[in-house]
């Protein structure tokens, strides 16, 4: 695994999200009310809405464009909608967050 440091957990508001820019698109990093951290592609399977801008509740986020609800754990659309977004492994060591990307990406200087 190629772990890339992205910052500290406190950089993300509780029940909120930030995004990480990569050459392959944005990644949304979420922090739940229970202080769990998840990362998924910042791209709703429905019409590409930026999931990082949605409302975070439980372990899910509601897309800001058309209210699809996406599981942060599995990346799958919940409820009657069908679709899936790629999940990205996150590591939290004493609040320092890293994500694992398959391609050879590193933190930009």
């Amino acid at each position, binding site marked *: 695994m190629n772990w890339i440091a992205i910052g500290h957990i406190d*950089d993300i508001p509780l029940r909120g999200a930030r995004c990480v820019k990569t050459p392959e698109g944005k990644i949304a990093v979420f922090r*739940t009310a229970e202080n769990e951290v998840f990362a998924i592609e910042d791209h709703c399977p429905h019409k590409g809405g930026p999931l990082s*801008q*949605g409302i975070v509740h439980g372990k899910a986020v509601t897309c800001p464009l058309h209210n699809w609800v996406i599981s942060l754990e599995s990346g799958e659309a919940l409820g009657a909608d069908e679709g899936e977004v790629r999940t990205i492994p996150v590591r939290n060591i004493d609040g320092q967050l890293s994500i694992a990307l398959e*391609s*050879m990406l590193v933190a*930009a200087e």
Partner: protein
Amino acid sequence: MAQKLVIIGNGMAPGRMLEELFEKAPGLYDVTIFNAEPRVNYDRIMLSPVLSGEKSYEDIVIHNDDWYAAYGVTLHKGAKVTEIDRHARTVTSANGITVSYDKLVIATGSLPFIIPVPGHQLPGVLPYRDLDDVDNMLRIAEGKGRAIVIGAGLLGLEAAYGLKRQGMDVTVIHLMPTIMERQLDPAAAYLLEKALGERGIDIITKANTKQILGNDKVEGIELEGGRVIEGDMVVMAVGIRPASALAKEAGIAVNRGIVVDDGMMTSDPNVFALGECAEHRGTCYGLVAPLYEAARVLADRLTGGHAEYHGSVVNTKLKVTGINLFSAGDFAEAPDRQEIVLRDASAGVYKRLVLKDNRIIGAVLYGETADGSWFFDLMKKGTDIAEMRDTLIFGQSYQGGSPLDPMAAVAALPDDAEICGCNGVCKGKIVSTITGKGLTALDGVRAHTKASASCGNCTGLVEQLMALTLGDAYNPAAVTPMCACTELGHDDVRRLIKAKGLKTIPAVMQELEWKTSCGCAKCRPALNYYLVCDWPDEYADDYQSRYINERVHANIQKDGTYSVVPRMWGGVTNAAELRAIADVVDKFEIPMVKVTGGQRIDLLGIEKEDLPAVWADLGKAGFVSGQAYAKGLRTVKTCVGQQWCRFGTQDSTGLGIRIEKFMWGSWTPAKLKLAVSGCPRNCAEATCKDIGVVCVDSGFEIHFAGAAGLDIKGTEVLGLVKTEDEALEVIVALTQMYREQARYLERIYKWAKRIGKDEIRRQVLDDLDKRKGYYDRFVFSQSFAQVDPWSERVSGKDKHEFNPMATVGYSAAAE
């Protein structure tokens, strides 16, 4: 000429009597009421839900001021009658009002019995009879602490439950060995005591109060035997006695209560007594059902009829959420009586029927009370139950063949079976009213028949009747839950937020038993709005519960970019502003500039990261956010008005700008768009707005509840006012009423349809005190709301919203 009818007391019994009277013979009497309480007639049975915070005073009003006005009734509030002069036929109140009568009805109700132990006059010793008592209890309960309730009867236990719900520790003291001994046998009492104990209410039986402790207020009580219980409040619920002193002083025959005959007449043929103060055939009633029966008889007598009251068999239900309890009749043991008992300890069910000569004379049901009305019906009719005796206890479903489902059981009830005990409404009346009036909602049935309109225990039965009568046309889910996280509808949530003083989203979710840990994208923005609206000074806005547009103060577009609309007061701009906008467009290469429907300029296609810099530049030219994204005040569209237009009658542009400067920044349940037109040609299209003003020569015509979106609807006219100041005050009051009452995302026209435009007009136009109240609350709220969100963010607030957390690129040389 109409005869003069004077009523002393304004409780539920005379209220019902008047309804019957006005239905039978409107205009026969000039009615004057003296009410010792400073308010209208309300549903006293529902005091317990008010105490527990499940209802508000407004919910339990039976007759509002309009009702009295409509029937020409003179109501003296806060006027306690101190003298009846039977020779002059007058009554006189403590505040000096004297009125003469042709017929007099005494309905003074009852007085709570206060045990005269030492300390009973200390502040903090309260009876439980009226709304003032409830208010006093709630005031003390705010400080939490411990409450002591003396008396474990119906009222005492309901008070205990209410105070527990308000967050107090509660101990109930009861003299007898078992609780509610007048209604329950020891076995049912035991089950009830256990259930209340599980709800955190301590009950001490066989306890006699020796004295109430404390110096200048209640600090506790001491029982016989020396045990001391600390507490901040003592509620006395040990019984009532008829308030008959006034009648006695006037020389009317009084025993325990005021003695009446079968026509509710006292020893004076021009004087009648009704309600808890009356004694009929040796019995004083304290429950509403018999009093309503007597009210019907009296209304008939007053209109020349000969109806007779023969006394009532009563039943009792306890209004404690989650506890089902029914009791009726006489269930003391005696040699000539037999009993049938069913116990199911694991299901918490206990049923006991007392029989005499093959007829039911008493019934106690605990845990499962659905058959209560059926048993009660058999009891009242004296039905011979010999043939169904073996299966009687299992209830109606098991009579005559195979078991019935609950719907079939209701279908099988005879037309004269009583459904609503409080109001004496039988099945036939409900069914014929549903079909006759074309009713489809429970509220309608309540309004027309009164069934389930008092204590509400028969609501389930009434709903089953509606389902039977209407078939598929009946939609029982009249209250739609806010979302899947709760069973409660928006209105209940709004009410409970106020009633329980809930001031954070976690507190709402905890207290109202949310089913999810942190809500969802439907309920969180709604709760955030309700809390912002209700506690403007105390609530900390939760941005994580706002939609993205309100969180970043711009409108998200389909490609994830944003659009920015600066405020252009009343749609008026100038060269400097336009130049600043042009410069911003160039500098940030904004791909599209568009004029909006609300007379402003929209800059589209801005990257999120650029928003603060765009705002900084716009801010330098004096622009603030146009809140084009908000569930809040959007635009006030204007025409050029008197200043330029040859038809203009007022300064419509000036008024529009004034309104916008007064109201910008306020959050509302849904977006709020206004317009001011300078004449009825209406160039600002004010008559399809949420609120509109059409200027005319004589003043300002205020419109509201228009729509031009998913629905198209012309406005309703609220009314005409003379001055700009008054126009502003009315518009602000209307907005505040809407802010306080509407459901989240409900536009003003939908809200107005629900509430009724007459009611809105009454509150914000006609009732000057109400109008002022709304206006003042809006102004107070604005002192926290009018902060430009753009300049706040330019100065660094919520920086994290606008920058990526990190940027990663390909490695030049991976290590």
